[in-house]
């Protein structure tokens, strides 16, 4: 399926947000996910199915002042 992830076109076979995050090895990282402009919390990740054309953001804390 074709998605936009972090602003770039990507293909994935993941069926849910949880699987998508896992496919990057980020399941234990402190990341936050947004789907189509709406934040989805970790406990929701299993329940949200990936659909073609979704816009997904995966963000985290970085150094900043």
């Amino acid at each position, binding site marked *: 399926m074709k998605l936009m992830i972090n602003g770039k076109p990507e293909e994935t076979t993941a069926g849910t947000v949880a699987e998508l995050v896992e496919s990057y090895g980020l399941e234990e990282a402190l990341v936050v996910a947004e789907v189509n402009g709406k934040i989805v919390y970790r406990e929701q990740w299993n329940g949200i199915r990936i659909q073609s054309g979704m816009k997904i953001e995966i963000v*985290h804390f970085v150094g*900043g002042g």
Partner: protein
Amino acid sequence: MKEVLEIGGRRLDSRFFLGTGRYPNPFVQNEAIRESEAEVLTFAIRRVNLEVPREDTILQHVKAEDFVFLPNTSGAKNADEAVRIARLAKASGLSDWIKVEISVNAKTLLHDPVETLKATERLVNEGFVVLPYTSDDPVLCKRLEETGAAAVMPGAAPIGTGLGLLNPYNLSLIIEEACIPVIVDAGIGTASDVVQAMELGADGVLLNTAVAKARDPVKMAKAMKYAIVAGRSAYLSGRISKKRYATASSETGDFPGEG
């Protein structure tokens, strides 16, 4: 003047807020953080780099329970973007504090007063503890306070310039009129800038580049820590007033051989 600094219901024993950007490496960063004894650390929110998703991340090195995390909205160009970043930051579960930072000029990174005001208002309404980074405009700082900011953070000088307190007078007006804590943020170059801010009565100082890019960040963190204490203590001690003419510090009594 309260002896204890409290923001968003949290008591802070250190008045030193430290940024986490631009250190030469994580080891130096951690040593600097440790040496600083800061309680509040700032961060930015960015996309995970999915090419190297498991690379070294900053939070691997910082124990969340030891600090208050203050994520910022850097990168936002307007209130909408700032609100979006703030929500993402909060969704991490790490903190409901947010530093509103809406910079619109690439050369100066100075904030936009109108958008900063809007973002602050919206985020306060959403329950955030909002600490807006702002110019040193006393009226704007008062407006931010009225809007519900938990503290105001006027800049000493543009971010990363190290120019020190460009307008101590305005900062002192802001402090004089504020009913919320005033944290001087950005533009600090060295320890004397920090002392000067604290002597004006600031409740704290937030800095990043002055430590991270010093030749020796760990020692500079130490310098800043002592500068905070020196400045606060001097403020509380009631300095002597300035006089045009001299007064002897030695007893003026009876000088041998004059009689």
